[in-house]
């Protein structure tokens, strides 16, 4: 396949969707005959594959019952070398051995394996990673887990390039017992001075000034209870504001909130208000209802970090188990400058809908002040506080794109869930697939309604053996692999999603959102099935198939797609379909080209200096893959479907697609076709002349019409071999007209035996010529002469291979037991062939009894006379 592109027009369209989403689109059309986009350029997504990347985690700790696990997620197709560096609390550096992460895979690394050992300098500190490659090719997340107290803190490693030197965070405080550790970590090689203002949700504030040496990490414990200013039981909010000196991004911060008694744990993220792109947030996948018998309480907290009062309004779009959708309007909250508060949403939700009916839900909030002036956090917490499901609140335009590349694993009771939310007010489409050892699983192209959130439970998909669009099921023994999903369409930011790893038994969950550099781009398209040969009058289904590659060049599973369909000759092939499949009907013999047409997209990641973020440029074009569909004439039956050598058999061929001028062909030797005649499009006749010396067996018959040759039908050449008795009157009849014809008081016996000529297997042979040969004939003691043998001819009965032998000595004046006997040979006498004896019988024909091969009582129907078995 070749690739050619004729750009007719280029337009740059800035997509500003309702929430102010930003992306750009280049649209062109092409009339290409082939549909394969060239392999990815060495610089994927417009970036060098050797681009250096530094990622940082603010805090690790392997003491105090904690384990620290680093997950490295390579979304690209080639292995990536990652160099971790551990820093102690005081900034000492420990360079560890590089870690290779194979393409399209992930690794979980215990930091103790890297040298972070309890009781040493590197028991506690911060972590940095270095690797080369395209943007976002490596996703990394650090998990701190205290199994004893059911605590789990996750931190996604980010490139430390902040939007400003101001960091803000807000969090919910579950109880008076909760501890809050504020983590401040210097990612730079220079000293950083920070001023932190800590707030317990009351007018009281605590100011902390710290100076951090290069790579130093400071853990500031906020003991609210001890200071006697503990928050109220249910709705107190904590927050922190940090301003620091030095380069943007040289300080990373995190707040770890924990309640060891209940198992509550939460890792609060910090953001720079200056990085805000819109005055809104969306949270994808809010859990409601019950888990393990405990009611979940949805919690949202907000903080106004601006200088003027703000008003926050929210909605909760949801989808019920039955598939219906709805939106719950959440109460509007006004916050004064600097004020933080929780937003009571549970009451509003329960008033509008039964939470047990909700399958998926999400959060949408807008505020009235400048982008970035409000910080928000959301989560669902069980009654006992042990189950905590964090919902990242995203400023949508500040996100990279609608893609996700996550690991999935099923260990013990844990499972991976994926939430995907349509953040626009129009229906969108997405692709979802996952890999497992030895295969992949693809849901194909799916639709998602405006505002809708879908949740995909990988364990359920595996355990329930839900087939994908190709019928493939996730093997029950599969336990880990990679997930890929992406928006499909021109708006690369129409969807957002994340994964959630949940272990309900252990009361732990973590959220992971990892973008690709861009949505996948079109690589090739075609029509399935690859080979379409239709018999006239039949039909089939064709589907459009597209193959994409992700922005790192790795292929993603093919999926079905399409839009419009057409046929070059509807009198040969008619086509009816819209979307990814079309029904085709073979109308008449010949060939026609069917064509599918749909739009495909190519994405390129570029950095927009105007907007200060990476955007995905979209190019769209139309592809029109086509396929030649030959329509073959169809033979349903031939009648008769057999004949004996030496005969001319007029056959009727019934089927479809017999156009004028159609011809009939017979394979092998022994049969000559003549007088082929098209009676109608559904019937032909022809004469098959079977040579007298033709061998027995089956030959194939085909019809050629409009240049296409039909399916084959079988015609058997059957060689007469022996006789079978069909009926025998025995000696039960007598001739009673001798007196009328001769004035003889005579009643000779009359025996009539009806024979059928068959081949060696007992099959019908069709019309055949037969004759008699008499030998050893005795003198007729009835004195009325002897019989005349039958000459060679077709049976007069018009039954082809069936004839009746009437045997009697006939009227005579002797009567009594007079008669004669002879040896009777029934013979097949084909035109142009060799005379063959079918049966040799001893006839004894007397006035009062007719005996054939010593039988007087009559042969039973089906009795075989003559040779047995096939040669």
């Amino acid at each position, binding site marked *: 396949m070749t690739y050619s592109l004729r750009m007719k027009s280029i337009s740059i369209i800035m997509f500003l969707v309702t929430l102010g989403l930003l992306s750009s689109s280049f649209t062109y059309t092409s009339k290409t005959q082939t549909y394969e986009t060239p392999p990815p350029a060495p610089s994927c997504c417009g970036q060098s594959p050797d681009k250096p990347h530094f990622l940082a985690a603010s805090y690790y700790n392997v003491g105090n019952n904690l384990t620290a696990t680093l997950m490295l997620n390579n979304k690209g197709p080639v292995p990536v070398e990652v160099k971790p560096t551990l820093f102690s609390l005081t900034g000492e550096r420990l360079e560890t051995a590089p870690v290779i992460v194979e393409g399209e895979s992930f690794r979980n690394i215990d930091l103790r394996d890297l040298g972070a050992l309890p009781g040493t300098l590197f028991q506690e500190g911060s972590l940095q990673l270095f690797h080369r490659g395209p943007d976002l090719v490596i996703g990394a997340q650090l998990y701190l887990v205290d199994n004893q107290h059911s605590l789990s803190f996750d931190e996604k490693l980010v490139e430390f390039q902040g939007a400003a030197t101001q960091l803000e965070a807000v969090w919910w405080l579950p109880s008076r017992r909760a501890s809050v550790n504020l983590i401040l970590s210097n990612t730079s090689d220079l000293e950083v001075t920070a001023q932190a203002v800590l707030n317990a949700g009351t007018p009281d504030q605590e100011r902390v000034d710290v100076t951090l040496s290069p790579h130093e990490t400071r853990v500031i414990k906020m003991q609210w209870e001890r200071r006697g200013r503990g928050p109220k039981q249910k709705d107190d909010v904590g927050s922190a504001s940090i301003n620091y000196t030095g380069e943007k991004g040289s300080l990373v911060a995190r707040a770890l909130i924990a309640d060891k008694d209940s198992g509550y744990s939460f890792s609060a993220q910090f953001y720079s208000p200056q990085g805000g792109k819109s005055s809104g947030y969306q949270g994808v996948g809010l859990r409601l209802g019950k888990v393990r018998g405990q009611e979940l309480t949805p919690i949202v907290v907000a903080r106004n970090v601006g200088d003027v009062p703000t008003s926050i309004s929210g909605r909760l779009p949801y989808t019920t188990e039955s598939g219906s959708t709805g939106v719950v309007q959440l109460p509007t909250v006004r916050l004064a400058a600097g004020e933080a508060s929780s937003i009571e949403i549970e009451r509003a939700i329960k008033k509008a809908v039964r939470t047990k009916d909700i399958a998926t839900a999400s959060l949408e909030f807008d505020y009235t002040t400048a982008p970035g002036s409000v910080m928000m956090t959301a989560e669902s917490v069980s009654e006992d506080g042990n189950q905590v499901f964090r919902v990242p609140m995203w400023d949508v335009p500040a996100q990279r794109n609608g893609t996700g590349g996550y690991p999935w694993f099923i260990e013990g009771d844990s499972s991976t869930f994926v939430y995907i939310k349509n953040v626009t007010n129009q229906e969108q489409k997405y692709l979802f697939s996952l890999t497992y050892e030895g295969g992949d699983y693809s849901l194909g192209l799916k639709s998602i309604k405006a505002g809708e959130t879908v949740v995909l439970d990988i364990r359920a998909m595996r355990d329930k053996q839900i087939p994908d669009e190709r019928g493939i099921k996730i093997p029950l023994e599969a336990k880990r692999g990679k997930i890929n999903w992406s928006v499909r369409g021109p708006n690369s930011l129409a969807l957002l999603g994340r994964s959630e790893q949940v272990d309900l038994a252990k009361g732990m969950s973590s959220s992971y959102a990892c973008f690709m550099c861009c949505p996948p781009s079109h690589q090739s398209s075609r029509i399935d099935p690859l080979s379409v040969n239709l018999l006239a009058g039949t039909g089939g289904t064709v589907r459009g198939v597209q193959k994409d590659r992700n922005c790192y060049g790795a292929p993603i599973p093919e999926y079905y797609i399409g839009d419009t369909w057409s046929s070059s000759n509807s009198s040969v092939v008619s086509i009816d379909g819209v979307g990814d499949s079309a029904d085709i009907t073979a109308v008449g013999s010949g060939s026609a080209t069917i064509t599918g047409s749909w739009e495909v997209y190519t994405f390129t990641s570029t950095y927009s200096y105007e907007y200060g973020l990476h955007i995905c440029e979209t190019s769209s074009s139309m592809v029109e893959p086509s396929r030649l569909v030959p329509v073959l004439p169809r033979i349903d039956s031939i009648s008769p479907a057999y004949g004996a050598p030496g005969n001319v058999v007029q056959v009727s061929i019934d089927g479809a697609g017999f156009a004028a001028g159609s011809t009939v062909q017979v394979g092998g030797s022994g049969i000559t076709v003549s007088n082929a005649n098209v009676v109608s499009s559904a019937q032909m006749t022809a004469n098959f002349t079977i040579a007298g010396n033709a061998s027995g067996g089956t030959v194939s018959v085909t019809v050629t019409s409009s240049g296409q040759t039909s399916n084959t039908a079988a015609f058997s050449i059957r060689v007469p071999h022996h006789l079978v008795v069909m009926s025998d*009157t*025995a*000696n*039960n*009849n*007598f*001739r*009673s*007209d*001798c*007196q*009328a*014809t*001769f*004035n003889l*008081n005579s*009643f000779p016996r*009359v025996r*009539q035996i009806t024979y059928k000529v068959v081949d060696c297997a007992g099959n019908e042979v069709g019309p055949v010529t037969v004759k*008699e040969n008499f030998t050893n004939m005795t003198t*007729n003691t009835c004195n*009325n*002469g*002897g*019989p*005349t*043998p*039958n*000459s060679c001819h077709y*049976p*007069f*009965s018009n039954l082809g291979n069936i*004839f*009746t*032998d*009437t*045997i*009697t*000595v*006939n*009227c005579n004046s002797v009567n009594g037991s007079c008669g*004669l006997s002879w040896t009777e040979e029934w013979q097949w006498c084909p035109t142009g062939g060799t005379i063959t004896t079918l049966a040799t019988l001893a006839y004894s*024909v007397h006035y009062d009894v007719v005996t054939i091969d010593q039988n007087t*009582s*009559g042969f039973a129907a089906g009795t075989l006379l003559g040779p047995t078995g096939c040669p």
Partner: protein
Amino acid sequence: MKHKIALLFSLFVLVIGSFYTFSQSVGRDIPPGCGVIRGRVIDQNSVPVSGVRVYAMVADHPPRATSSDVHAITDENGAFFLGCAEPGRNGVYTVKEDDFYPDTFLTPFVDPRFFTAVDVTDQQVVRGVEVYLPPKAGKLNIRVRDARSEKPIDGVVLTICRSNESVKLPGPECSVLTNLPESGFSRLLPAMAYMIKASAPGYQDWYYGSDGSKKHMEVMQLTPKMTKNLIIALRQQSK
């Protein structure tokens, strides 16, 4: 009375038998070993009958094997054409079972007045042959079973005789059918009175009558177009 019937029959035979020879002529394209018979079939009211199967069978010497295969079906005028009758004296026979006309060649007790004889010469045509259909017959269906098990019995011999009450005609008085097939006996028989006997090895003889015994044997009257179904239950002989 018997004498009168015999006299009438003799006169009839003389009349019918005088038609041994019809007009004959040399036919074209008649193969050797064949003669042609042309004629028509009429009923007792001399009305031509269509749809009658007509065939010829040589009578004066053992027939050629497939003689009975040579047949014709009468047209709307009752006309027929037999293309290859075996040379010699032939009987011409008719059958139209769906209209209760029996096969005059194979059916026992057919009135000989309805036999037609024709002399056929090799490669010659006989024209003007008129064949009378016999009176319509009745149909007799007989199945024989074991009285206790109701299963078919092997080796059944069925004897059907004309009763003394029937018109005395030439020919055998009885028709004996051996090895009756499991499907039984089903045949058109001339409408007259019959006596029926069924026997089988190991079974008591059965006679048509009130209780199957010879003592209470009765005559069975078969009328034209009548269908008589008999299921005969044979009792095993006591040991």
